[in-house]
């Protein structure tokens, strides 16, 4: 990160393999990556490129075979069980299929991470309402996820991820289960979180328009490696639409220097 700025997240030489029936499969191969505080960092690539595994390495949902993961100055790969859980409470995460607790109301869903972090009962409800206000769902507090639309469910998941005021928000294909209109809506919420709360966002997606519309920097993954990397500062991204070529050309409209 030559242009400076504090790194909130850095991965150094991380690798992760899985044992499959026909031998080991390397999902993430010697990846190093640094994300500046305040960035919206997109990770794009085809299915099976290792994007989701890379994201899950960032909060150690997957433990890397080799390499280190550092978030906000804490080296997660060196932490024991309890200390790691405490750090995870400060990293928000949202998912493609929302992963809400279906038998819990909207407000209870948002309250759970606060309970886990030991926030006293008195402060919990206040914080829950703050978060629901932020995503525009204060009026749905008493409803169950099944009564909400997909976009509303993702907003609840975002409120839940924000409950413990994280500095970093990890998003695993957050709009891939949503229609285009709702996608724009959710991206607006993410942009708002980044701009007004200063939360750094890492977003894994296979949708070019997601990257074009909100990301400030992009890493392109292929075969478990980062094969290209560029930022909006270098000259802006194209408006949403379909183009052909490499991921860089399709996002920026320009071919780039070979990535090293």
């Amino acid at each position, binding site marked *: 990160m030559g242009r400076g700025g504090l790194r909130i997240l850095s991965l150094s030489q991380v690798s992760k393999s899985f044992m499959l029936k026909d031998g080991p499969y390397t999902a993430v191969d010697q990846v190093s990556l640094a994300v500046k505080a305040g960035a919206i960092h997109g990770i794009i690539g085809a299915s099976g490129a290792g994007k989701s595994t890379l994201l899950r390495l960032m*909060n150690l*949902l997957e433990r890397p075979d080799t390499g280190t993961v550092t978030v906000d100055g804490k080296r997660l790969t060196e932490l024991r069980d309890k200390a*790691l*859980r*405490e*750090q*995870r*409470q400060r*990293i928000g*995460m949202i*998912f493609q*299929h929302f*992963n*809400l*607790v*279906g*038998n*819990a109301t909207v407000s209870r869903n948002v309250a*759970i*991470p606060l*309970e*886990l*972090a030991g926030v006293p009962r008195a402060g919990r409800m206040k914080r829950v309402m703050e978060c629901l206000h932020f995503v525009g769902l204060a009026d749905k507090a008493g409803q*169950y*996820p*099944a009564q909400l639309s997909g976009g509303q469910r993702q907003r609840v998941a975002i409120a*839940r991820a924000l409950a*413990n005021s994280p500095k970093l928000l*990890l998003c695993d294909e957050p709009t891939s289960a949503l229609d285009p209109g709702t996608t724009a809506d959710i991206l607006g919420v993410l942009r708002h979180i980044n701009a007004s709360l200063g939360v750094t966002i890492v977003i894994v997606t296979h949708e070019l328009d997601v990257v074009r519309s909100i990301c400030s920097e992009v890493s392109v993954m292929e075969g478990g490696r980062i094969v290209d990397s560029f930022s909006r500062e270098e000259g802006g991204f194209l408006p949403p639409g379909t183009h052909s070529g490499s991921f860089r050309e399709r996002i920026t409209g320009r071919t780039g220097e070979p990535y090293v």
Partner: protein
Amino acid sequence: MFESMLKYQDQMWQSIGETFVMVGISIGAALLLGLPLGTLLYFCRKGQLYENRNLSLVLNSMVNVIRSFPFLLLVVALIPFTRLVVGTAIGTLAATVPLSIVAIAYYSRLVEQSLLEVPRGTIEAALSMGASKPGIIFKFLYVEARSGLVLGLTASTISFISFSTVMGVVGGGGVGDFAIRYGYQRFETEVMVYAILVMIVLVQLIQFTGSTVARLLDKR
């Protein structure tokens, strides 16, 4: 029929009481020990959070052995153990010991199945929030699986009633024993039919209650 109902009213009420004691204590045992055992079975499975092949093998063998015993023989085999626990191998209280053992094994299996239906993503979300083991269990797993857990307990209860009918062999009493001794062995067919009707009503009530509660709990 009404005649025999009146004639044996006292015995019938006593039998129902005995059935309630035996089944009630078994339900207690199922909840107190079967629920944690089932949760452990779930966590130790291959691919689950605390995968443990050895523990999984031991627990599964135990549950399977208990469940494959012909129940009557299990009752007999457990007589020394029963004596150790309640001081006697005869009577209603003694009968609850083998019944509870089967209840624990039976319900733990149903608990494991219910928990397996909780989506992996829910567990993943819990982990991403930094949930501890108790946090995952009580704030996610049991909440999501609660209607399945209730339906499992309902099915178990009905099985326990069925198991309890043979407890006459160790003087356990109960409605089933009443039907056998008064109705079958004394050739009073009406009494037998009467007792069976009581059991049918009992089972219907339990199933209706269980299904209703499960439906009300399910918000997914």
